[in-house]
């Protein structure tokens, strides 16, 4: 029996993947573990690997297609099977099961493109026919590198084909997606005093301009940005959040950190405050399994592992790689693990497992000198910890005011799963651990 290869789940929230690039072609002999394609998920571009040996008899999708999770992407002929016969026997050539919303008819003439054009006669007036975006290979390559959805780019080539200059114009903000085309604002105010309804910006007199004027720019949303938008909105709109903030005195932790870093200098390891927070959170989660959980309508799942997601800011968005079994790791392993994940995130080379299985997330903005903030829960987890900067503040000690190093931590918790007292109790444990770091050893 030939093997049907399906779209794998490469990230925990993935519902479909875009085939960014095929790395194999029909007729290729492949072995288990061979990379088949680059798949763009909602999080990152990752390689889809083969679980089987065989010869590729049939490929269902072209590069650029969006394919639903579990939908067939190719058929492999096993050893002893004739790939040609297998290909001939392939039925129900799967169409892309999920498709980016096609832009509205660019010409605005109300003609609906045919569902599936019978023949490619090159005469269609619109760029999108049957959901297929006509584009040159070069345009596709540039779009993939810039992470833009070609369906949003108006094509000016023959038959509406999107070519390089279209993508470049789009990236430069010279053109807009056809669907989003707003009525063009008047170029300049008419000289006569016919006050336009929507007044154009009054030009600033030249004398008052001290720097170059800001340029209005339209930046198309990447898949990652769209995912962030959708998931953040979903979290904020569906989760009744509770926020619990504690101030943590971290003088002892700072001293410990200094001592340890001296010891570790030879090994070129430099522990950050964040590493201590990660360690403390991992220890605290073991003691408060209610926070190491997932909420589902009919059950709360308390996880058997403590896998901490560490939010990493990228130029194009935000990604949360996961430090697995954080509770079993020492500080050095946490440092190295976080560094590795952050580097992989920035290099776009995170593997699927590094993006999945998180049970709790930490978001740290301490390096920006933030005093306190609330993070949005990374669904389906039930809580997230916002970490701010450790800074010198006046602290009341007995009846005296002294200078102490203080850090504010805020827990956002899903009140459907976590009650205020539970959240507060967790935060008290966390505070204790960080104020007396030796307790982490207990």
């Amino acid at each position: 029996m030939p093997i049907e290869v399906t779209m794998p789940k490469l990230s925990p929230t993935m519902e479909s993947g875009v085939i960014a690039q095929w790395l194999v072609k029909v007729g290729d002999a492949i072995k288990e573990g061979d990379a088949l394609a680059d798949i763009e998920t909602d999080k990152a571009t990752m390689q889809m690997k083969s679980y089987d040996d065989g010869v590729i008899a049939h490929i269902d999708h072209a590069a650029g297609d969006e394919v639903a999770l579990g939908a067939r992407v190719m058929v492999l002929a096993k050893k002893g099977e004739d790939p040609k016969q297998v290909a001939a026997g392939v039925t129900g050539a799967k169409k892309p099961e999920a498709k980016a919303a096609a832009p509205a008819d660019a010409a605005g003439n109300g003609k609906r493109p045919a569902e599936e054009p019978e023949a490619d006669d090159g005469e269609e007036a619109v760029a999108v026919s049957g959901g297929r975006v006509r584009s040159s290979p070069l345009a596709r390559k540039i779009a993939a590198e810039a992470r833009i959805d070609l369906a949003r780019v108006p094509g000016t080539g023959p038959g509406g084909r999107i070519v390089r200059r279209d993508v470049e114009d789009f990236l430069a903000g010279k053109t807009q997606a056809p669907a989003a085309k707003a009525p063009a604002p008047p170029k300049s105010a008419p000289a006569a005093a016919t006050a336009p309804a929507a007044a154009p910006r009054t030009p600033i007199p030249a004398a008052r301009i001290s720097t170059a004027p800001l340029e209005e720019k339209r930046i198309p949303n990447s898949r990652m940005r769209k995912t962030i938008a959708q998931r953040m909105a979903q979290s904020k709109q569906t989760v009744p959040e509770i926020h619990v903030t504690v101030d943590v005195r971290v003088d002892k932790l700072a001293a410990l950190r200094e001592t340890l870093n001296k010891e570790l200098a030879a090994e070129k390891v430099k522990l950050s405050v964040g590493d201590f927070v990660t360690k403390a959170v991992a220890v605290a989660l073991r003691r408060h399994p209610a926070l190491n959980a997932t909420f589902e309508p009919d059950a709360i799942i308390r996880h058997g592992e403590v896998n901490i997601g560490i939010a990493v800011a990228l130029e194009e968005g935000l990604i949360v790689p996961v430090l697995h079994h954080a509770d079993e790791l020492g500080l050095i392993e946490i440092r190295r693990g976080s560094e590795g994940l952050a580097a992989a995130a920035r290099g776009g080379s995170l593997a699927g497992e590094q993006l999945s299985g998180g049970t709790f997330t930490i978001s740290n903005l301490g390096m920006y000198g933030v005093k306190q903030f609330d993070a949005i829960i990374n669904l389906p987890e039930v809580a997230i910890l916002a970490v701010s900067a450790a800074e010198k503040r006046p602290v009341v000690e007995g009846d005296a005011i002294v200078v102490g190093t203080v850090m504010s931590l805020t827990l956002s918790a899903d009140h459907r799963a976590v009650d205020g007292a539970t959240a507060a109790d967790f935060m008290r444990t966390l505070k204790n651990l960080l104020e007396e770091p030796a307790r982490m050893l207990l």
Partner: protein
Amino acid sequence: MSAFSYREALNQAMTEEMDRDDRVFLMGEEVAEYDGAYKVSQGMLKRFGPRRVIDTPISEEGFAGIGIGAAMVGLRPIIEFMTFSFSLVAIDQIVNNAANVRYMSGGQFAVPIVFRGSSGMAGCLGATHSHRLEAWYAQIPGLTVVMPATPADAKGLLKTAIRSDDPVIFIEHEVLYHEKGDIPDGDHTVPFGKAEVRRPGKDVSLITYSRSLKPTLAAAEELAAQGVDAEVIDLRSIRPLDLDTLIQSVVKTHRAVIVEEDWPYCGLGAGISDRITREVFDELDAPILRVASADAPIPYNKQLEASMLPSVPRILAAVNDVVYR
């Protein structure tokens, strides 16, 4: 560096090689007493005598076969076909013997032979004198196929062909014989498998060879006036093909038009287009277009003949299609 005609360049190459190596000889119809149908072998009989410049009867299969046999036993024949259209009579010798002997003898025999002669639009000589058969020969493993466009390449490539230990199909062009150009002094040779960028550009790659170089360069000049910077590549060597130069060019320009005088169906441009597409598909911003001769026998009538060949307007039209103007 001095200016000579294409036919003089070929004459120089043969003369110099026959001076250098007494195993080299020339054989064909009217190459001796008549000084060559196109006067390419002018003066050679006088210089080398009837043992080395040999007139043959109209018997292409016979003298091609004799040449192959002579090459197998150590001589270095140059076989002139009055036109390559007539080489079809000898095609069994060329394809079944010349191309295969080294392979089929397990390397015991080589066939160092040059089949040369004119080809292409001949100027009102009708269909059977005007064929372009480079795609036929280029398809055969074991044959090298070269097609010079300039006097310098005509001389340089022919000298390399005569020195080659394997059979070379050396296709000249009827209307180029009188074209003049500079030829470097001394022992000028041009290696096989090296294309020449005749005009650098960045907007579109025009890939051509032989007679079509001229209209292609003229088209490039017109394009420059219109703001399109075309790169013109002269293949010179049809097989082996200088894929590297082609790919470098397409990676730069992202568009290609192949200008070839042969017929379009399964023509040379089809093979070149296939190689480029496979190698650098992601660099292409437009389909590769081909400007070839019309898919018909070549007419006798002058205007009809001219109209079916690649011309400046046809090249401009193709370029406009790939740059989307």
